[in-house]
C-alpha cells in the first residue's frame, strides 16, 4: 500500500497542500478531482517522491519516508515501483516514440520488452506513429506513449496527472478501459482527472481536493450525493459547464 500521513508541502512558508492523509491500494483506482490550482499536481509530486513535504510521512510498501527528511540522509526513492506520467509528458525529444518506451525497460535488463511493447501498441492503437519522434506526433498520441512508457516498467503504483486531456472520446474510452484492466494486475492507480464519468464508473475511491486539503472523500457515490457544500458547488459548476 502507498500511504500518505499528514503531509504538508509549500514554498517559502505558504502551504500548498495541508495535512493530507490518503491511501492508494494495489488493485484499486483512486481518482483525485478538484478545481484548478488547488494543489492536485503538488500532491501527486509528493506521492511520487519528487517533492519532499515539510511534514508528515509517506509509506510505500515496507519503506517509510518521514519528513522533514534529514539533509545528511540519502534519499533513494523506489522508482519505478512507484512511477508517474506527467501532464506535460516529458518524452525525450531525441528518441523516437518506440525508443522512448523501450529505453528505460532495456536499461533495467528486462527480457520481454518487445513482447510487452507489442501488446501496448495494440492496446493503445499506436502502430501508425510509434516510429515517429515526439515532435512529429499529436498531443493525444504522445499521451498514449507516455502512459505506455510507464506501464512497460510494470509499476506497483502508477500516478497519472491528467493524461487524457488531449484525447478524443474513443481514445479516452480505450485508455480508461485499459486502466480498469490494470486493477486485475494488482496495480494501484492514482489518477488526477476532470472526467467525472470515469470516476463514477471505475473509481474505487474518489478524493475531492480544494484549497490544498482533501475536502471530501469516499466511494464514487460522493459524486452523486456530496456531503460537503464545496463538492456540491464544484459538481454544479462542472455540470453547468458540460
Amino acid at each position, binding site marked *: 500500500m502507498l500511504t500518505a500521513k499528514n503531509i504538508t508541502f509549500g514554498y517559502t512558508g505558504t502551504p500548498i497542500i495541508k495535512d493530507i492523509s490518503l491511501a492508494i491500494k494495489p488493485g484499486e483506482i483512486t481518482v483525485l478531482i478538484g478545481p484548478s490550482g488547488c494543489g492536485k499536481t503538488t500532491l501527486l509530486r509528493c506521492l*511520487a517522491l*519528487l517533492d519532499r513535504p515539510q511534514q508528515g510521512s509517506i509509506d510505500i510498501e515496507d519503506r517509510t519516508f518521514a519528513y522533514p527528511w534529514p539533509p545528511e540522509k540519502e534519499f533513494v*526513492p523506489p*522508482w*519505478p515501483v512507484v*512511477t*508517474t506520467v*506527467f501532464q*506535460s509528458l*516529458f*518524452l*525525450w*525529444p*531525441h528518441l523516437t516514440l518506440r525508443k522512448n518506451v523501450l*529505453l*528505460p525497460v532495456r*536499461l*533495467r535488463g528486462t527480457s520481454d520488452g518487445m513482447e510487452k511493447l507489442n501488446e501496448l501498441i495494440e492496446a493503445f492503437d499506436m502502430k501508425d506513429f510509434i516510429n515517429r*519522434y515526439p*515532435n*512529429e506526433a499529436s498531443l493525444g498520441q504522445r499521451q498514449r506513449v507516455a502512459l505506455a*512508457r*510507464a506501464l512497460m*516498467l510494470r509499476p506497483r503504483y502508477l500516478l497519472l496527472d491528467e493524461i487524457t486531456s488531449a484525447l478524443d472520446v474513443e481514445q479516452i474510452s480505450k485508455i480508461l478501459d485499459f486502466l480498469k484492466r490494470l486493477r486485475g494486475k494488482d496495480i494501484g492507480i492514482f489518477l488526477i482527472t476532470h472526467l467525472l464519468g470515469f470516476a463514477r464508473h471505475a473509481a474505487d475511491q474518489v478524493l475531492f481536493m480544494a484549497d490544498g486539503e482533501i475536502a471530501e472523500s469516499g466511494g464514487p457515490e460522493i459524486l452523486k450525493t456530496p456531503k460537503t457544500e464545496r463538492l456540491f458547488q464544484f459538481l454544479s459548476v462542472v455540470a453547468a459547464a458540460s
Partner: protein
Amino acid sequence: MTVFDILVNYHVAFLQGLGVTIKLCLIIWSVGIVGGIILGVAGAYRRRTWGRFIRGMSFGFSAIPTLVVLFWLHYPAQAAFNVVIDPFYTAAFTLSLVNIFGVGESVRQAIVDFPRQYILAGRVCGMTTPQIVRYIQLPILFRQLLPTMLIIQVSMLHASLFASLISVEEIFRVAQRINSAIYRPIEIYTALALFFLLVCLPINLSAAYLKKRYTRDMSER
C-alpha cells in the same frame, strides 16, 4: 601572373605556410574543445566559483580583440617576465585560451539550461544518474552544442591569421611575403582563399555529416 601561376610557382611556400596553420589549428581545436568541455562542466556544477570565472573570462575575451590579447602576451608579457617564447607557441597558447573560454561558456550555458523535466522523467522510470547522463543528457547536449562548436572552431581558424602579426610563418604571412615580392595582391589573396576553402571543406563535410547523423529539428510542430 594568374592565380594558377602563383599556385604553381609558390606552392612549396604556400604548403609550408598551410602546414603551420593546420598545426596551429589542431592545437587550438583540441586544447580548446577538451579544455572548454572540462571547464564548462565545472562551471555548470560550481556556478558560484567556476561558473562566474568562466562567464567573466568569456566576456573579456569576446570584448577584447584577439589581436590585442596576442600582442599583450607576445610583447609586454614576455618583456615583463624577461623571457623569449617562440611566437608559434604564444599564438597557440593565446588562441587556445580564447577557444577554451568560448567553448567552456557554451557548454556551461547548455548544461545550466538543460530542461530538468527530461532528467525527472528518467528518474521516475528508474534510470540511474549515469544512465540519465549517457542516454538522455549527453545526446541532447551534443545535438544542441554541435552547430555552436563548429562555428567557434571555424572562427578560430580565421583568428589563426592574427598569428602572422607576431611573425608566425603561417599561410597568411607566407602570402604577405610573396605579395611583397611580386605585388599581385588580388591573385595572391585569391590563392589564399582557395587554401582556406580547402581546409574548410573537410570541416564543413564533417559538420554536414554530423548534423545529418545526429541533429534534427526537435521543436514542437
